[in-house]
């Protein structure tokens, strides 16, 4: 029994990591209508950069925040100098992000080499929390809590702020939006940066659990896409539900069918797609 | 037997009731105008008749046949044809290519993938004849995006006419045109054979009353009244609807 509860906690914590990453992807799509294929790279680079900062400062919390911030800035620059020039063509923007992915992932390989990196874990990882007769890995519970906080923060942002309302509605007519006093370029750049930040942040949180290895950027991108396919593009609620679903399926899939670990997630995705092409909560 | 029967059609979008128990009957060869202020539901009605939208409740009958559940292309094959309020042509292709596609469309059952190039060529004379009828022969190799707005509107109707439909839906065919262009379009519509039944949405009252035998007035998704052009012209209710919206 304990075993299954622990597994559920494992699944939920990874689900929260996945949520942080896919919410960024969802936000970017919701507003800019592009699938940011470089999202997985933000995840990976977040970890590498924060490792560099960690080595320099030895401060765990600082390296998480600075690392995520650095990637947020990277995202801002990519959007501002490359993507924004192709406002009118979503397919061009998607292809640009594909180019970035190849370039960034190979660059990371070049700079940091190709071994599986285990991130030096702070003592917090070893702690466990005893609840009744069961003991849980403390870190995973923290991740769940942080994830919930992020989810609440994003919800407040989308539902209660003016900017959030714009993101929710999507800016279909930028002329009109500008007429309403909205700085559209700033909005786009800001949200892209936020998405990158979230991905890096989630990446570091997740990276502590799994480590980093070449190909991770593709794997996480695919998982995030599976989440969005299921939950529906552009829906925060969908990203949350989808993340938890994918994480739990992935976790239990690995336990029950270890040989097929890498694609157990996509089978239910394909099935659900067959019946509901826009996912559970999607807006097309 | 009427060509078109709209039977108790309702359409709601979420909370918005776009069409509210609409009944309409159009006889063979009739010219029927559907008028009403903005947001009355005219285009929605057209989209339900043609199959772009499906009704929330009610049925559509064309030539006695229930077409309510049929996909658009099927309705077209049964004799329906339409033009669009916002110009909807093959902008990147030439006038000739547009015409050939339209003609191939109604002959489509005869063309398969392995037919040699020559069968495509056989469509060109027919396309030329069609363009000749509509005065666009001279613009044959021009890309649609380079045509004038008036020419595009004519092309729009021409494409819809390629299949010699039984029922032609025209959605604001003179919208955005100059006076000269409008009179060209009007005369072309007037020249259409009475074997074709025409249903048209028109914002321009004069054009609508000029072309139509009968007029249906819609407001806020409901049929307010229906009658001959003369009757509608004099109807105080119709004046009120338009005046009220003007004031607003």
């Amino acid at each position, binding site marked *: 029994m304990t075993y299954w509860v622990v597994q559920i906690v494992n699944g939920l914590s990874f689900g929260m990591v996945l949520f942080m990453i896919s919410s960024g992807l969802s936000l970017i*799509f919701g507003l800019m*209508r*592009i*699938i940011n294929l470089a999202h997985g790279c933000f995840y990976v680079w977040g970890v590498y950069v924060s490792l560099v900062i960690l080595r320099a400062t030895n401060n765990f919390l600082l390296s998480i925040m600075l690392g995520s911030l650095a990637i947020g800035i990277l995202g801002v620059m990519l959007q501002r100098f*490359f993507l924004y*020039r192709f406002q009118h*063509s*979503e*397919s*061009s923007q*998607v*292809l*640009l992000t*594909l*180019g*970035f992915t*190849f*370039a960034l992932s*190979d660059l990371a390989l070049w700079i940091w080499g190709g071994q599986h990196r285990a991130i030096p874990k702070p003592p917090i990882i070893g702690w466990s929390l005893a609840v009744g007769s069961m003991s849980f890995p403390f870190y995973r519970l923290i991740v769940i809590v942080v994830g919930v906080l992020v989810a609440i923060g994003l919800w407040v942002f989308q539902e209660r702020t003016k900017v959030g309302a714009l993101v929710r509605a999507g800016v279909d007519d930028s002329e009109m939006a500008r007429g309403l006093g909205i700085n559209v370029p700033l909005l786009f750049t800001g949200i892209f940066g936020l998405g990158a930040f979230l991905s890096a942040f989630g990446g570091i949180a997740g990276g502590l659990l799994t480590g980093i290895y070449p190909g991770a950027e593709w794997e996480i991108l*695919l998982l995030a*896409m599976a989440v969005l396919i299921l939950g529906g*593009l552009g829906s925060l609620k969908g990203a949350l539900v989808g993340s938890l679903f994918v994480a739990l399926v992935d976790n239990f899939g690995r336990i029950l069918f270890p*040989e097929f*670990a*890498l*694609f157990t997630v*996509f089978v239910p995705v394909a099935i659900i*797609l*067959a019946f509901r*092409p*826009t996912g559970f909560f999607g807006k*097309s | 037997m009427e060509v078109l029967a709209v039977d108790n059609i309702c359409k709601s979008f979420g909370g918005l009731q776009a069409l509210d128990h609409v009944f309409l009957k159009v006889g063979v060869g009739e010219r029927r105008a559907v008028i009403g202020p903005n947001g009355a539901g005219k285009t929605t009605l057209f989209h339900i008749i*043609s199959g772009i939208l499906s009704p929330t409740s009610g049925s559509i009958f064309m030539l006695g046949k229930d077409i309510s559940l049929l*996909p*658009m*292309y*099927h309705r*077209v*094959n049964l004799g329906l*044809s339409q033009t*669009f309020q916002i110009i*909807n*042509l*093959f902008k990147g*292709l030439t006038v000739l*290519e547009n015409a*050939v*596609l339209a003609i*191939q*469309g*109604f002959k489509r059952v005869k063309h*398969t*993938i392995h*037919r*040699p190039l020559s069968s*495509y060529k056989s469509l060109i004379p027919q396309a030329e004849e069609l363009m000749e009828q509509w005065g666009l022969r001279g613009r044959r190799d021009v890309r649609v995006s380079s045509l004038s707005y008036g020419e595009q509107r004519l092309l729009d109707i021409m*494409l*819809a006419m*390629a*299949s010699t439909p039984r029922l032609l839906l025209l959605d604001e065919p003179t919208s955005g045109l100059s006076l000269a262009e409008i009179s060209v379009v009007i005369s072309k519509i007037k020249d259409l054979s009475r074997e074709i039944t025409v249903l048209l949405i028109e914002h321009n009252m004069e054009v609508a009353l000029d072309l139509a035998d009968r007029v249906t007035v819609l407001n806020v998704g409901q049929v307010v009244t229906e009658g001959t052009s003369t009757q509608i012209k004099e109807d105080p209710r119709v004046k009120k609807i338009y005046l009220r919206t003007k004031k607003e």
Partner: protein
Amino acid sequence: MKRFFGILIILFILAVLPKVLGTYYVTLATQMLISAIFAISLDLLIGYLDLPSLGHAAFFGVAAYTIGILFKNGVNHFWLNFPLGIAVAVAVAALFGLLVLRTRGAYFFMITVALAEVLWGIAFSWRFMTGGDDGIPGISRPSLGFIPFSLGGATNYYYLVLFFFLVSFLFIYIIVHSPFGHVIVGIRENELRMRALGYNTWPYKYICFILSGLFAGVAGGLSVYFKGFVSPSDLAVTLSAEGLLMVLLGGAGTLFGPVIGAGCIIFLEHFISAYTERWLLLLGIIYIVVVMFAPQGILGLIRSRIAKAG
């Protein structure tokens, strides 16, 4: 007329190539031709259906694996393995098409990736059938049965690939210029209007999708006998992405463009890989440069230069 002679010259060059160049270049040319078939199959999807897909490697890899798995189980007759490989690719395309054609734009894009990933995952994980991570090595080229033409040497295999390339290109060229092809273009330009003109657009899209999978399967089948092995990388997103770049670089919707694009990318890959390991970095940069400065591709650039001059 000029075009006709141009093509004759190119055909001549392709035909005598092995007599003039050494084995290294012959194998390079073979690889270029195989990629060219993959690229034109993808062009049907991207250039003609306007459905940018990142999962095209699925059809390529499935054909390759079919041949590999048959080989692993002792079956290796060209006229059995090769058509079966293509048939499986067609079956997969038929299945994917049902799921994927109801969607557009971003959803379509993501779903093609997801579906290709399922196949990749199967190839990676199902050690027993597919050899897992290691793939299936040592696949030898079979005889051509009653045709007295050995596939063993580089030159002879080159001619086989050239034959299939010419057949594929011709086939697709005819399709694209047929009434069917014009309907496809019409659907690409304005699907709603096509439906309003009486076309049932779905079967046209479906058939085009399956054809695109078919020819990707041809490329995959030729590839596995060329390399002598098959591995999960034949199903990977990176392969699909390379194909996408080939089409873009050459010019989508032109057929000739993707062939040129394939040649360029393969050439660059070989050339660059001799000096550095950073091929993917360069690939990414080429992507960015092409999208930013030449989105119509090489052929598009040439055409607009001609239009400007003329």
